[in-house]
């Protein structure tokens, strides 16, 4: 049924957090001149990264290590003036349940927030999420998505993909607009086992049944004002908190203006 106040949409805890990201954009000159970038990881995690890949000539540094109940990555691209903090499940060494979106999002944002107070001036701030809701199949997925969208999906159709941006004025920082870019789809995960034999070569066999998910990708970010005009430093924490709430609202309520 098309999105309405009366729809029985899933509670937010039913959605899992497949991937989370906080991105900051800076003037490249500012980021290149920033001191202590190699300590940013410690500010957030309080530990050393498990792996660091440092490409000095490319001006790129990537740190990865465990954080909260998942895996955190920090990618700094000095020449492009960009910093990404990304959180996913711990790598597939041991199978595990992906935690509910709210708890992982809270842990992630709580970790990043202290860094926002110490990072170089930020020109643009973004929060990215990939959230998934398990469903029994494509048809149920389309029916479920219809409760989040302003139109009904034809259950016989396939390969649905819907993207829209709905801007809002920031409450946390006066004069700032926030893009709320959302992409809705239904995805399928199929596991396969590949066996190599001298006689038949590579043989692929399905393992278990395919899993279906409603999938929501969010990119919530500040609309750029001017390359030389950073966001008010004192507003960054509040802006990120506002983005978190905007993201949760979309997960709860669907595509609303």
């Amino acid at each position: 049924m098309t999105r309405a106040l009366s729809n029985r949409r899933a509670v937010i805890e039913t959605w899992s957090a497949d991937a989370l990201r906080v991105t900051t954009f800076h003037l490249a000159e500012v980021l290149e001149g920033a001191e202590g970038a190699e300590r940013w990881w410690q500010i957030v995690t309080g530990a050393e990264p498990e792996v660091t890949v440092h490409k000095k000539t490319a001006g790129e540094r990537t740190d990865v290590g465990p954080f909260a109940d998942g895996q955190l990555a920090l990618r700094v691209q000095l020449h492009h003036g960009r910093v990404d903090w990304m959180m996913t499940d711990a790598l597939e060494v041991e199978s595990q349940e992906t935690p509910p979106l709210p708890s992982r999002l809270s842990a992630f944002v709580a970790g990043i927030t202290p860094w926002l107070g110490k990072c170089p001036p930020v020109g643009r701030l973004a929060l990215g999420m990939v959230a998934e809701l398990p469903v029994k199949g494509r048809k149920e997925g389309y029916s479920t998505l219809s409760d989040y969208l302003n139109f009904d999906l034809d259950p016989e159709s396939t390969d649905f993909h819907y993207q829209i941006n709905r801007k809002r004025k920031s409450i946390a920082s006066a004069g700032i607009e926030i893009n709320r870019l959302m992409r809705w789809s239904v995805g399928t995960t199929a596991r396969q086992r590949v066996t190599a034999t001298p006689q038949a070569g590579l043989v692929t066999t399905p393992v278990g049944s395919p899993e279906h998910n409603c999938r929501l990708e969010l990119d919530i970010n500040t609309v750029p004002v001017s390359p030389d005009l950073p966001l008010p430093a004192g507003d960054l924490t509040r802006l990120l908190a506002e983005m978190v709430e905007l993201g949760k609202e979309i997960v709860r309520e669907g595509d609303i203006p």
Partner: protein
Amino acid sequence: MTSTALAPPRAPADDSTTRDTGGQWWPPETGEQPEGNFQPRATPETAPNKPTWPTDTPAASETGPLLREPANLPVVSASLAVAHFLVKIYGLCRLNLESRAVDEVYNFMDDHLLARQFSVCDDVLGAADPRKMLPSLVISFLIVTRRAKPRLKVRSAFYARALAALVETEGASQAERLVGKYC
């Protein structure tokens, strides 16, 4: 370190998967080495639903241009793939899943060598910490990269670190016996 951990690394999975074609491990040089771009290309329902990062707001869309055009890059990068690969094999080593770890090394490195992505292999060797690996993994890295030695700028430095790490845990003569021939 247990003695079983010192067993020489085995070839990946099955002989039929070994890609040693007698000296030609990657296609003949055809020009510029392709840079790794690991941006997943999953589409709804028709592709495996691997985690993908939301890409940037499209620079050309009505959401406005980014501060700088080059900033609109895929977030999932070669460096990130390298870091995740190393985290994964360290984890497998901690769990003593030696065979799986060796398979991962052969698969990842061989794929990138075959694709002529030597800079990615250099990133791995440059970032890899032999002290966090079982000796068989260290040997696997050295074996799989041996024929590409002339193309890999940091392999010799990795070898030196690997030897030093093995000397600490195994003693000088055992370390030399384990990796000396893969220099």
